[in-house]
């Protein structure tokens, strides 16, 4: 250590002399602040299938095509951005010795101006599965975080993220995932019904109910577990190509009659939705974007060579986007100049103009198993 101090002093002397004739000014190394959140930022959650205990969240500026930050996560993390854009919530799992030892489940709260963790809430458990968005949800006011759990008994953990406390764990036998609405959440169940759980202002269950009969036929044509979040609730695609919309904007949830993504001819040609996050919604245009491919039963995760765009008002296809290569997951920004962000089958991030479909950014090599896309 003595040596390094001596060196430092000598260096400072050398620099003081050198600085007088420098063309490039001296710089003080530091840490860059995060740029202000843009509606065109894309958050990619990479489960890193070959190193599951060191996952990543890659934040990309979808306009500039540049990495904003890369955050390491624990095992099979989920993340959500707070409604005010000031916080990033990451649910993650660690073991005290990497892949063994004591298990710890937490929600880590990041400050979006520094991307540093500022708080942590310990969880009683969380669902461990290939990362998908509806493992975790946030109440509309941003106060409660809901985390699906499976042990394999199923439940929802309610966290008061403002207070930093776990409110409780709500048993939800036979039902999975968590889709928040106003003062409640709903969950699809194994028999095709939906469970709804209503909460009070403290996040505690006040009542629950199941739809009196199945909303969809779980054997013939199940809904995908990764719907789009629409202006009023959720739009689920089915394996076969129907859309089930759930309206959670009022009191009791309203389950609309399903409509078809395909004409009889298109269906006969095998067109159906596929991929991971296969459907996304643009609030600005009230359009639904669906990753479509031609295939049969069991192809519900095949990447889509086309993205079909529907007017949600008319339930009609309005245009087709042809991405540069088939897409696994898609997300659409919520602003008035929407972009489509897609993870392609080669795990590149492709950003397209939502209106024209023209690709504006293509970033290969970012991801190992980047399955989940979010925009603020």
């Amino acid at each position, binding site marked *: 250590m003595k040596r390094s101090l001596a060196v430092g002093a000598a260096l400072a002397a050398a620099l003081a002399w050198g600085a007088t004739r420098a063309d490039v000014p001296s710089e003080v190394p530091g840490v860059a602040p995060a740029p202000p959140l843009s509606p065109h930022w894309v958050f990619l959650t990479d489960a890193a299938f070959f190193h599951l205990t060191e996952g990543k969240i890659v934040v990309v500026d979808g306009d500039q095509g540049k990495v904003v930050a890369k955050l390491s996560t624990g095992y099979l993390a989920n993340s959500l951005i707070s409604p005010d854009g000031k916080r990033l919530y990451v649910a993650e799992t660690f073991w005290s010795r990497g892949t063994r030892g004591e298990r710890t489940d937490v929600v880590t709260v990041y400050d979006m101006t520094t991307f540093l963790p500022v708080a942590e809430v310990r969880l009683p458990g969380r669902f461990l599965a290939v990362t*998908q968005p509806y493992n975790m949800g946030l109440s509309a006011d941003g106060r409660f975080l809901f985390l699906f759990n499976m042990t*394999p008994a199923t439940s929802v953990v309610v966290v008061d993220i403002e207070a930093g406390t776990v409110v409780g764990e709500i048993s939800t036998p036979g039902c999975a995932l968590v889709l928040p609405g106003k003062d409640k959440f709903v969950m699809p169940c194994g028999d095709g019904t939906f469970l709804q759980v209503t909460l009070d202002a403290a996040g505690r269950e006040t009542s629950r109910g199941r739809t009196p009969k199945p909303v969809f036929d779980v054997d013939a044509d199940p809904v995908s577990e990764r719907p789009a979040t629409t202006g009023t609730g959720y739009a689920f695609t089915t394996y076969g190509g129907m859309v089930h919309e759930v309206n959670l904007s009022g009191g009791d949830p309203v389950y609309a009659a399903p409509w078809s993504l395909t004409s009889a001819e298109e269906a006969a040609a095998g067109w159906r939705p596929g991929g991971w996050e296969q459907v996304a919604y643009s609030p600005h245009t009230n359009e639904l974007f669906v990753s479509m491919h031609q295939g049969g039963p*069991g192809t519900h995760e095949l990447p889509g060579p086309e993205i079909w765009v529907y007017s949600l008002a008319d339930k009609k296809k309005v245009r087709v986007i042809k991405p540069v290569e088939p897409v696994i997951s898609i997300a659409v920004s919520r602003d008035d100049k929407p972009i489509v962000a897609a993870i392609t089958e080669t795990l590149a991030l492709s950003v397209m103009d939502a209106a024209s479909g023209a690709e504006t950014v293509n970033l290969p090599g970012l991801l190992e198993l980047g399955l989940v896309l979010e925009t603020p």
Partner: protein
Amino acid sequence: MSLIDGWFEKSARGVARRVSRRSAMARLGQFLVGAALVPVLPIDRAPRAETAADPGDPTQCDYWRYCGFDGFLCTCCGGSVSHCPPGTSVSNVTWIGTCLNPADNKNYIISYNDCCGQGSCGLCLCNTNQGETPVYRPQLNNDIVWCFGATNMSYHCTIGAVLGTA
């Protein structure tokens, strides 16, 4: 029983397809049956050798027992087709499939047990999605980490043990 019939019917999957490493649809998972209930049956504890009755290469995804497989083949990771590699722990909460043995043209019930407690083996990824259902019907979902019966939930690889004929 109708539930079981439904499963078995659904899980008769024909030929498994091999998935490239770069496939983003790489999956974990299995689903559940109480394997601990089975040991009343006659058991072969010797390591499996290829026989006329059990043909094929268990280190390849097209081996007949892997018709409903999802994950890394333990046979590439120090395990056998019925035993987890040393250094891991076997989950007894498993997913099962029904696979056709080409040698005797019979359907066998295969227990796909996850081996857990180490990070991903990373070798011999093998994956099918025929008959898979969303996570709200977990018995047929293969995205879930089915390590519930193991010492911990860190997924390493998956075996395919014969439970009996279907």
